[in-house]
C-alpha cells in the first residue's frame, strides 16, 4: 500500500474540480468497501482520494413526481410506459448505502427488486458502509445493485468537467470493472420510473454461502402481470454471467404474453442460455453458471406463479 492524500470536498463542483485536476491519480471514495481492498493489495495506488462522504445531497432517496428525468436531456429518454400512465420517477443518490436502500419505503414500494438486491450485498457491516454509487462505479459484472437497475431501465446521472449528463444504465457498463465514466466524472445517482401497480419483480442471487457472498449468478426480473399466469413488459437482467450485467432479451420476448405453467416456465427459462456467456472462475464453472442463470429465473417464476411473495436470494 502506498501513501495517499485525502481531500474532503464541500460540493460536487469542488469534487469534480479535484478529480479533473489529478486525472487518473485521483479516485473517489465513499464507503471504501471495494477501493480500500484494492489499495491494500496494491491493485490501485491513487495519490489522492476524494472523499465525497460529506456531500449530503447525494445521500437522498426521493420521488420526483410525474416529471421526466431532468438530467436525461442528453438522451432525451422518456420514462413513459406504454399504457400505464406516468409513474413517478425515483432518484437514489450515489451515497445512499445498501442498508438505506434496502429499508427505504420509497424503494421498497417503487422497486422492491432493488431493495431486495441491496439487502443481499455482503454483510451488515458492508451494507452499512457500501453505497449504490460505489457498486455502480466499481462496475463488477457481479455487482448486486446493477441487475435490478437494468430491469428498471434506470439511468445513471454523472457529473464531470463538462457538466451533468445522464447515461442509460445499459450503456454505462463497458466491460468488467470498466464504465463509461470519463476522466474527472463521478456518479451522482440513479433514477428510474417506479414499477406500476400491476408489476411484479424479484431479485435472486446464488452465492457460495448465505452472507458475505459474491454472486455466482444473479437475476433481476420485472414484469407486468396481465393474468395470474402471464406477463408483459418483461425485463430481465443477469449478473456474473457475461463481461457486464446483461439483459436477457431472448427470454423477455419469449415470456411476453405467454400463459405459463411450470413446464412452460421451465422451457422459457432455459432460453436464458442464449443471453449469457459466462466464464469459469474460482466461484463456478462456465457450464454451471449457464444452467444456474436458467434455474434461478425458473425458481423465481415458480414463486410468482405459486403466488408466494417474490422471494429473493436468502441471506443477510
Amino acid at each position, binding site marked *: 500500500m502506498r501513501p495517499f492524500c485525502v481531500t474532503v470536498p464541500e460540493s460536487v463542483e469542488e469534487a469534480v474540480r479535484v478529480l479533473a485536476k489529478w486525472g487518473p491519480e485521483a479516485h473517489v471514495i465513499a464507503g471504501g468497501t471495494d477501493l480500500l481492498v484494492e489499495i491494500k493489495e496494491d491493485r490501485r495506488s491513487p495519490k489522492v482520494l476524494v472523499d465525497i462522504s460529506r456531500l449530503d445531497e447525494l445521500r437522498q432517496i426521493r420521488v420526483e413526481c410525474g416529471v421526466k428525468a431532468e438530467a436525461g436531456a442528453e438522451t432525451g429518454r422518456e420514462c413513459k410506459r406504454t399504457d400505464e400512465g406516468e409513474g413517478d420517477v425515483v432518484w437514489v443518490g450515489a451515497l445512499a448505502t445498501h442498508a438505506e436502500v434496502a429499508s427505504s419505503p420509497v424503494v421498497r414500494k417503487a422497486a422492491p427488486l432493488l431493495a431486495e438486491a441491496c439487502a443481499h450485498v455482503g454483510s451488515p457491516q458492508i451494507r452499512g458502509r457500501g453505497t449504490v454509487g460505489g457498486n455502480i462505479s466499481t462496475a463488477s459484472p457481479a455487482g448486486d445493485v446493477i441487475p435490478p437497475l437494468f430491469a428498471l431501465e434506470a439511468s445513471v446521472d454523472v457529473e464531470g468537467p463538462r457538466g451533468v449528463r445522464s447515461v442509460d444504465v445499459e450503456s454505462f457498463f463497458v466491460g468488467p470493472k470498466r464504465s463509461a465514466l470519463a476522466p474527472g466524472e463521478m456518479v451522482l445517482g440513479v433514477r428510474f420510473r417506479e414499477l406500476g401497480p400491476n408489476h411484479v419483480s424479484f431479485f435472486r442471487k446464488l452465492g457460495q454461502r*448465505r452472507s458475505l457472498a459474491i454472486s455466482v449468478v444473479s437475476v433481476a426480473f420485472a414484469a407486468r402481470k396481465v393474468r395470474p399466469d402471464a406477463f408483459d413488459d418483461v425485463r430481465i437482467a443477469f449478473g456474473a454471467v457475461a463481461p457486464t450485467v446483461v439483459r436477457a432479451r431472448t427470454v423477455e420476448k419469449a415470456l411476453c404474453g405467454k400463459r405459463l405453467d411450470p413446464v412452460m416456465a421451465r422451457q422459457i427459462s432455459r432460453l436464458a442460455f442464449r443471453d449469457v456467456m459466462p466464464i469459469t472462475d474460482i466461484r463456478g464453472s462456465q457450464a454451471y453458471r449457464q444452467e444456474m442463470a436458467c434455474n434461478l429465473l425458473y425458481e423465481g417464476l415458480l414463486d410468482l406463479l405459486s403466488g408466494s411473495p417474490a422471494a429473493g436470494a436468502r441471506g443477510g
Partner: protein
Amino acid sequence: MDESRWVGARVARIDAEDKVTGRLKFMSDLSFPDMLWGAVLRSAYPHALIKKIDTSKAEAMDGVVAVLTHRDVPGLNGFGIVVPDQPVLCADKVRYMGDAVALVAATTKEGAREALQAIDVEYEPLPVVDDPEEAMLESSPRVHADGNIHHHIKVERGDVDAAFRDAAVVVENTYYTPRQMHAFMETESGVATIDEDGNITVWCGSQHPFRDQLQIARALGMNPRKIQVVSTPAGGAFGGKDEITVQIYLALLALRTGRPVKIVLSREESVVAGMKRHPMKIRMKTAAAADGTLLANEVRVVGDTGAYASLGGPVVNLAIEHSCGVYRMPNVRLEGFCVYTNNGLAGAFRGFGANQVVFALETQIDMIAERLGMDKLEFRRKNALRQGDVAALGHTMTASVGTIATLDAASRCEIWARREELKAMPSAPHKKRGIGIATELHGCGLGVGLPDYGAATIELLPGGRFAVGVSCPEIGQGNTTAFAQMAADSLGCSVGDIVMVSGDSRHTLDSGTSTASRSVYTGGNAIRSAAARMREILADVAAEALGAAREEIAFGRGGVEVRSCPAGAARRLSYREIARIGEGKGRHLKAEGDFIWPVADRGLEGYFGLPHLIYSYITQVALVEVDTLTGEVEVLRAVSIPDPGRAINPAGIEAQSEGGVVMGMGYALMEDTVIEHGITKTPNFSTYIIPTALDAPEIETIIVEEPEPSGPFGAKGIGEAVCVPITPAITNAIHDATGVWITHIPATAERVYMALKEHA
C-alpha cells in the same frame, strides 16, 4: 469435601470478560519500546533452485536494521516436530510458495515490506510436483533428495481376500477430501524481546511452548534455558499452530538486532505459508455378511503433505487407525502413504487424519446398510465395538466405550425419531430433505510409543488464592476454565480462588501440547496429583500451627479444620490464614504433580502413536434441504451427541460441539484451499469460503457420559471428535434427500448439482 461442586457445573469461562471487552491482549496486540517490525521474504516459485541471494539493496534502505538469510542461522537451519526437514531460511532450494528465503527487520511495517522487494533472489525453476499419486512414481521430480514418499504404513489382520470372497455385500469407492484451512482469527504472529544478558522471550500463540523452546534453541544454537516461550493466549489454533510458525524468525531477528521485533502475517501470507489439513485420496472396499455383520475393510490412503513432513506421518498413521471407525472389523488390509509435493504444507488439524477416513467409512456403512435394507442406526449399533472387544488394529478396547450410548441417544433425538415426517415437509416443491447419521471414536493423547506426560504446579498465594500452572496453552478451547474447575474441587475452594497460569515455559512445567484431545485429561490428572501433594503441605502447616496431629486435619470449604474439634471452635484455618503462616515462616507453599498416560496393550511396531487406549465417542445427526435447481445444501438442524466421559463444564462442551459442527459442515460443503501448479488460488476469505453465522444450523448438543476411570473426574478429551462425523452425517443426508452419494467433498452447490444431473 464436596468433590464436584464446580466440576459438572456450567461455569462461565474465566477468560470471557477479558475477551468480550477486548481487554485481553493477544500476542499480536503486544508492543514494546523501540520495537522493530519483521517481515518474511517468501519464495517466488513453488519449486526452484536458489542460485544467488543479494540483500545489499535492502540493507542500504532507510529504516532497515537487519536483513537475514540462511547464512545468519547460527544453529540447525531446520525445524519440524518429527524430522526437521523444513529450512528456517532456504539456502539452495525452495519447495513451496510459502518457503522463507530471507527476513527483514525495519523501523516500520511498511518499510520492512518494501525492503523485501529490494532483495534480489535468482532462481532456477524446477518442474512442479503437484499430484501426490504421480509424486510417488520413481520417475517424478524429487521434492526431497530421499524421494517423495515420506512415510508408508501397512497393517494387515485376518484373511481379507477370503472375507471378500464370502461376503454378501462388497462396496468399493474412491473418496477425495479437501485441503481445509484452520482459519483461526489470529494469523501466525508474535513478538520477540531480548534482555541485556541475551535472554530471549518469544511471545507467540502456539500449542506447545516447551517444544517451541527446543526448536528455537536448536536453530539458534543456544541453551534453551536462555529462551522463554509464552504461548497463551492464542487467537485460535486448531492444530495450525502446533508446528513452529514465526517463532524462530522472531528470535533470530531479536538476537541480531538486540531489539524487540514483531511479525504479524497478513491473511494472504498465512494462507500461502501456513499449515492445512491433508487432502487425501481414499480407496475403500468394505464387506458385510447377509445378516449385516461387517467382515472386512481394505483401505488405501494417499495423503498430500506438501513440501515438508511436520506431522504428516502421524496424521496418516491416525487415518489408518480411524479407518475402521467404531466397528468390529475382523479382517483388514490398511495401507497409507504420506507424500511430498509442492502443494503448500499439511500437518496437524483438529481430527488429525480421522476426518478424511471417517467421511469415507461412514459413507460405505450407509451404502452397505442400504444394500441390505437395514436401518442405518441399527446397522451401526449391531457392528459397534463394545468394551472388551478387539479393535481393527488388534488391541483390546479396555477403556470406556460410548458408541452404544451415543447411538441410543441419537435414536431418541427429534430429527431422527421424526425423520420421515420432517422429510415430507420441504420448504418448496423443488427442494428435498434428508436426514443423515454418522459416528466415530477418536483417539485421545499421543498413543503407543510416544510417551505422553503432563505436569502441574499449585502454589498458595499470599491472599489465600491458588496459582495453578499447566503449560497446555489456552487456544480458545476453554481448557483453563476446566482446569480451574478441577483445581477448585481438588482443593476445596471456589473457581474464583484459582489463578490459572498457562502456556509459559518459564512459569509452568511441561504438560505437553494443547492437541490430540489431551489437555483436559492430562492437565486434570496432573492437577489432581499436585493438589494431593498441596493438601499434604497445607495439612502439615495447619497441624503445626494448630498443635494437632496430621491425621486430624480435615479439608473443608476454603480451609482446614481439626476433625475432633467441636464445630465452631477456633480450630479452623482458612487458606488465607495458612498462607500468612507460611509466609511468616518463610515457607514457599508450592506443590508439583505429574501424570503419565496409560497405553494400549499392544503397539504396532514401527508406527509411533498407534494405537490409542482411550477414545472419545460421538454420534452426530443432520437434517438438510437440497435445492435441486441449484445444488445448494442447507443444513437445517444438527444434533451432536458427544461422550466426553464426564463433562467438566457442560457449557464448554456445548461450545466445542457447536464450533465443531460448523467446522465439519464447512469441510462437508464449502472449504478447500485450491492450489494449482503450486499456486494458491484462494488466498483470502473472499475466495476461501467458510460458513458464516447465517449458514450455521440450529445445533442441539446432547452430552452422554460414559466415565473413564483413568480420567480426572472421569473425563476424556472431546476437542477433535466434535468436528468429525458431522461431515458424513451431512453427506449421508444429501443422499437420503436425493439418492446421490457424495464421494468428493466439499459438496459445493455445483458438485451437488452436477451429481444430481448425472444421477437423473
